[in-house]
Each structure stands twice: as C-alpha cells, then as structure tokens.
C-alpha cells in the first residue's frame, strides 16, 4: 500500500527539520528507500519540496510511505497546493512560540481551504498535531495550544525536532491515523 504523508505548518515551524531528522532515524533502521530529495533555496529554505520514501512491513504487508514537506513561505503558496494533492495523512507542525500563534492559525485555515479544493474536509482528515520547539522560553502551554490548533482532538506530540525528540513518535501516530481513519475498509467492534 502506497501512502503519501505531508508535513505542513508555518514558515520556520520545523517541517524540514522534522523530515530530515526522520530520514536520518529511519535510514539508521534501514527503513528508507534511496536518498532524500531536497529542493531548497540558497538560504536553505524549502523551495518546492523535501521528500523520501520509507518502507514498513507488517505481517508481510508492505507499506510504502512517501514523506514530503510543503514550503512554508507565503509566496510559495501555489506550490503548497501542488504538494498536497492526493495526500493521505497530514502532520501539522505547530511552532510553540507565542509570537507565532497567529501565523500557525493562518496556515491551518489555508490548509483547510486547499483540502476543500480537493474535495476533502480537514476536520475529517487523518492528522497528527506536533507542538514543536517545546524548549523555547516563550513556548505556550500545551492546553492553550490544544484549544487553538487541535480542532480534531487528534493525537498530538510535544517535540523538539532539532534534537530528534518526538519526531519518530509523530510519524508513528500519523501512520496509525491514516490506517484507522482512511484505509480501514470495514471496522468490527
């Protein structure tokens, strides 16, 4: 089964850091296929996309996960729309800093609009919320962040992605969320 996972969030929230760290971790576990593709500007900001493919085998059933980031800068909005096409699951990387509160919210609203254009409803979509940069001195309380940025009451993960903290847990949760919410043909209680 081929799945597409996209990390979205505001500019400098840590999307690329997450995906690069995840690639390093999974590569060490021999769970990636090939190299990571990076298309960034001279200032190491994402221009178009960063992506890699991970392969996970459960009971002989292979899950091939294409992991991508969207560019965070506002001027690159048209490219974000392109990356989101056909996405199976999302990771919403939230910058915990209080000063980024408004920008985080704008990205959430914009992402909902992009998905709507594709006929999807963000509120019913497999999402994991990652509260990144928990080590910042002005980091908002998780309770406050939950009220503002987790309208799904989805799984959330506190993280310091630059140190690898919470990176793998986020990935694990988004896989579960996709399989439970989107790809389960039938559920038996």
């Amino acid at each position, binding site marked *: *089964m*081929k799945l*597409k996972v996209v990390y979205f969030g505001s500019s400098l929230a840590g999307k690329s850091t997450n995906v690069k760290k995840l690639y390093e971790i999974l590569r060490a*576990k021999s*769970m990636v*296929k*090939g190299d990571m*593709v990076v298309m960034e500007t001279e200032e190491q900001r994402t221009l*178009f*996309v960063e*992506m890699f*493919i991970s392969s*996970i*085998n*459960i*009971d002989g*059933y292979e899950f*091939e996960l*294409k992991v*991508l980031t969207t560019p965070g800068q506002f001027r690159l909005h*048209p*490219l974000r*729309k*392109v*990356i989101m*096409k*056909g*996405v199976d699951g999302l990771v919403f990387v939230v910058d915990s800093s209080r000063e980024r509160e408004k920008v985080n919210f704008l990205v959430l609203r914009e992402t909902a609009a992009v998905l709507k254009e594709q006929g999807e409803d963000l509120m019913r979509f497999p999402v994991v919320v990652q509260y990144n940069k928990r080590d910042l001195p002005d980091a908002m309380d998780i309770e406050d962040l939950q009220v503002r940025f987790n309208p799904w009451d989805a799984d959330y993960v506190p993280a310091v992605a630059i140190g690898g903290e919470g990176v*793998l*847990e*986020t*990935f*694990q*949760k988004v*896989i*579960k969320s996709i*399989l*439970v919410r989107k*790809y*389960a*043909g*039938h*559920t*038996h*209680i």
Partner: protein
Amino acid sequence: MELDLIEYDIDSTVKKQVEAILQKLVEKTSAGVVMLTDDAGRIVSIKGKKQEDTESEFLATLISGVFGAAVEMGKILSMDQLEVLQYESKSMDVVIKFIKPRFLLGVIVPKSTALGTVRLFMKEASDSLEKVLEGAKMVPVRELKIDIKELEERLNRILGGSE
C-alpha cells in the same frame, strides 16, 4: 476494534491494456521512459529502461509536481486548461501530457527523436488511454485484518517511536 485494511488497484484487464499502450509508445518514440501517473504522483504503470523503483517514484512525484506548478501558473495567467508541458536539455527532452480524468503521461526521449513525432504519438496514446481508463474499476488486491491495539504494538516494535 479490528481494522480491515484493503489495498485497491486498477483491475488487471485495464492494467494490461495500459501497459500495452505504454510499450507501444516506447517502441514508436525510442523513449527511455514512458510513465503514467495519477495527479498525486503515484505510478500507475511504467515502461522503458527504468522499472518501478525509488528513483522512478521520485520522478513520478516531480512530474506531477512540475505539471501541477504549471497549472497553478496557468490559473494566475488565466490560461486555458494546460494540456502539455515540455522541456528540453542537450541530451534529452521531457514531455508531460494531461490524461483525463486525473492522470499524467510522462515521456523522456533522446534528442534523436523529433519532438513533433513524440507529440503525435503521445496524442494517439492519450486518446487510447482515456478510453481505457474510462472503464477502469478499482478492485481489492490485498487485505490485512489487524486489531488497532495490535497495529499500535507492531508499529511501536518496528519503529520504536514511543520508546
């Protein structure tokens, strides 16, 4: 709670027809690669020197990405629906054509093949593909029954994310 995970694919008859059309296009254009993807960059079928591997997966994502970016540019410029995107290098050319309802046909050809010829045969192939894909049905190809708790434990064991 038990999950019944089902993987779907295009039915085998349609798949064979698609493969035959792509193979014919390879032969007529001497293409190194002929690839049919969906608009999200998932490979439906690939023919030529490359097989369905990691590099091809990236190629498929970028084919759908650059075409999608061109579509967005077209919207800003109020262009009509984008049909074909083409770019040239010293050694090879790439032509990407939209296939209804939501597919892309990507062809990578050597410089020795005239682009006019490529586009002519791509038009022929795209007409056939649209006809074939119109009747395509998605059929279940694999199934995995697993309890949610068990799934979580397996993922935890394999990935070790919650360690």
